[in-house]
């Protein structure tokens, strides 16, 4: 197999050298000879989740982004710090009091089947994303009433109402641009304009990417080939890294020490993903803010982070991480200090009987079970009796069918705080088990969505975060670090605040 790969790579490289004049100088650091990137390198990565489909518009989860984004550019991109940066649109602004989003498109881009990328292609993509059978993004794009082609590289989205989240939505799968010529076969044979093309694909398990030599950013694809596989178990990913089957992966906290002692680099940073004990606030007792505050005080977040994550996480009480623009400094991380006494007082005030049962819905996997058990034990300290019920499908059981009173689960994060707040803490929010909220939170959320000025928006996002925490709509636990582990040959890989790794600028030394 190795031999074949070399032959294939050599052939591709020879072809590239023959046809392209910009091929050469792609060295990232410009450092000494040892750090020289190998333009022919193969970068092998093991992801944590299986890929569902390579069609970005029917792909149901953001977990697929890792696999999709090397192939598909979006209209707007996210930087590693989760800020908006130009993608296929070089400029975007709200006009007509925010009821129009006008985009200027990047010129000279073609899809990998040589179909040109232009305003017509954008219109075709948005309309497809809204209407294709099985679209998983039509909800996010529902606000776009029509797409108007102004000229080849100018396009306007006419909106039903002001929606300041839209530019963030367009950084996701909803804003992914595919070749209109290939719309019918994207699931298996994707055609985008991204920095790589897919050379082979096995549904659910693995894909091989090859560099798109015509990509508009020559610094983006540093490795000639990328091979992705899915390995759902962290220990197996660690073993694969150790045996040299892969070059980089993401590890659970428990395996970080072992990777470091085997001389791998592990970059650990908080991302937008957090764990929380979600409460169904329509349930008896949980509809009382004092009880929800009591539960917040009953949780010893520090010991959860040190015991379950070996310190590789940040305890938190609000749904956004420190240093992120929606993080409220005043509320901080210690608004609900661990205080079982205070928790008992609050429970007594709310007349909760000693030994009151709370049904905890638990996603059936060891890491969630571990967390549920730890929470059960901490709640027992303040006189609450948590009973754990297993489910194989948490979202269905807890959000749709409304089973249980609470559930410890992770929230994977969204590019825009308004999305996270909307889904978790508003009446329409899919991931709000009670489909109820407080009027203050509802109002602030509406205002945030309707505000397009960046500075005002940031302030509102902070206020919203503070209000959610103040109303104790949730029991946020911690932000686990994303632990990106890689061999010493890998360059330019780091955690992305979005939590979804993109591989721009990732390469391998000789």
């Amino acid at each position: 197999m190795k031999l074949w790969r070399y032959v294939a790579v050599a052939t591709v490289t020879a072809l590239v050298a023959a046809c392209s004049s910009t091929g050469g100088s792609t060295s990232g650091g410009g450092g000494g000879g040892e750090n020289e990137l190998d333009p022919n390198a193969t970068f092998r990565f093991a992801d944590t989740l299986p890929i569902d489909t390579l069609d970005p518009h029917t792909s149901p989860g953001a977990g697929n982004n890792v696999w999709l984004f090397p192939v598909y550019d979006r209209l707007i991109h996210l930087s590693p710090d989760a800020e908006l940066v130009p993608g296929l649109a070089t400029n975007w602004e709200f006009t007509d009091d925010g009821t129009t989003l006008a985009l200027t498109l990047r010129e000279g881009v073609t899809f990998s089947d040589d179909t040109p990328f232009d305003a017509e292609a954008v219109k075709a993509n948005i309309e497809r994303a809204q209407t294709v059978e099985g679209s998983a993004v039509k909800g996010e794009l529902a606000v776009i009433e029509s797409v108007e082609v102004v000229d080849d590289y100018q396009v306007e989205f006419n909106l039903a109402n002001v929606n300041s989240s839209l530019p963030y939505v367009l950084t996701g799968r909803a804003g992914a641009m595919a070749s209109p010529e290939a719309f019918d076969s994207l699931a298996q044979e994707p055609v985008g304009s991204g920095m790589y093309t897919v050379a082979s694909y096995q549904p659910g398990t693995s894909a091989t990417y090859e560099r798109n030599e015509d990509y508009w950013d020559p610094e983006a694809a540093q490795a000639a080939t990328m091979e992705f596989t899915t390995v759902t178990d962290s220990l197996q990913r660690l073993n694969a890294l150790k045996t040299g089957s892969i070059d980089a992966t993401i590890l659970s906290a428990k395996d970080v020490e072992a990777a470091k002692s085997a001389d791998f680099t592990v970059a650990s940073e908080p991302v937008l993903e957090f764990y929380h004990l979600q409460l169904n606030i329509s349930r008896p007792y949980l509809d009382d803010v004092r009880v929800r505050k009591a539960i917040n005080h009953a949780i010893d977040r520090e010991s959860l982070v040190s015991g379950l994550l070996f310190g590789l996480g940040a305890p938190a009480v609000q749904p956004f991480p420190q240093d992120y623009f929606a993080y409220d400094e005043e509320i901080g991380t210690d608004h609900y200090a661990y205080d079982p006494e205070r928790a008992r007082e609050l429970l007594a005030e709310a007349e909760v009987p000693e030994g009151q049962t709370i049904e905890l819905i638990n996603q059936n996997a060891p890491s969630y079970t571990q967390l549920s058990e730890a929470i059960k034990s901490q709640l027992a300290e303040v006189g609450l009796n948590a009973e754990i019920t297993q489910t194989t499908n948490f979202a269905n059981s807890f959000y749709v069918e409304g089973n249980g009173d609470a559930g410890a689960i992770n929230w994977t994060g969204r590019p825009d705080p308004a999305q996270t707040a909307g889904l978790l803490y508003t009446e329409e929010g899919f991931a709000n088990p009670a489909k109820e909220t407080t009027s203050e939170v509802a109002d602030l959320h509406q205002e945030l969505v309707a505000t397009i000025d960046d500075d005002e928006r940031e302030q509102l996002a902070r206020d919203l975060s503070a209000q959610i925490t103040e109303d104790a709509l949730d029991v946020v636990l911690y932000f686990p670090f994303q632990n990106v582990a890689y061999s010493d040959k890998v360059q330019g890989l780091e955690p992305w605040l979005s939590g979804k790794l993109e591989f721009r600028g990732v390469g391998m030394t000789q």
Partner: protein
Amino acid sequence: MAALIGRRMLAAIPLLLFVTALVSAFTVFIPGDPAVYVAGENATVEQIEQTRERLGFDDPWPVRYAEWLGQALQGNLGESVFSASPVSELLAERMPVTLALTLSALLFAVLVGIPAGTIAALNPDRWPDKVVRGIATLGIALPGYWLGLLLLLVFAVYLGLFPTLGYTPLHQDPLDWLRHILLPSVALGAPAAAEVARQLRRSMLDTLNQDFLRTATAKGLRRHTVLGKHALKHAAGPIVTVLATQMALLLGAAVIIEKAFTIPGIGELAVSSVINKDVPVVQGIVVVSTVVIVVTNLAADITNAWLSPKSQSQ
């Protein structure tokens, strides 16, 4: 022979109908709603409802089964609810992997089990017998994934002799294929090898004690001639039956071994599609594994008929 094959193939048809109908009825009870996932993580409740309708989840199961059957009879096994990949493609991609794994495990069972069983039978109650019986009993008692993980730790992680994950098709690179398949085959085949050894020992002891062999020995035939010509041949019948039973068992146990070794076979697909209620994929897997089991049993019966023309199938 042709009549036997024809009869079995005909008998397989009601079996397939029965099994697929059972799956269809059973999946109703699997908790969860795939529409919640398929509709996307930012979906509204209405979108989920639309998705259920589009995928036909609201129809009662006999209706869905009839629709599926109609398509299946025309050779179309449908599409995965999640990936929209044709089920036949998913099966074509993964079934060879699982078959390669189970057949290698079976081969391991034969290569280890038959010599071990023979040695044990030739030395009843002496030390080689005791060693074989001890190891065989242990082999059956070890949880497969535990053995798999221990093998993985020792041979792949600490000794670095084998890769820890993945799979290379045989036709792509036979050597790499062997490196990938060896440890999982051993982990999967160990209980089968133990079973083969035990059964072989038992039936060889029975055969060796039969009168005609005693006569043969008495007539002065050399012991290994007796062994090779008569005992092994007579004991082969039960072993073929054991191997056929083992094939079905290995297909089931492959689920866990594939998970432990990250092999992209049918087992991993089976578990995820059952848990996620991806009914068309489950049906496809059931159809294929039923066919494999029917064919295996048929092969076993034919072999048995060939080994002993007088033997009757039970």
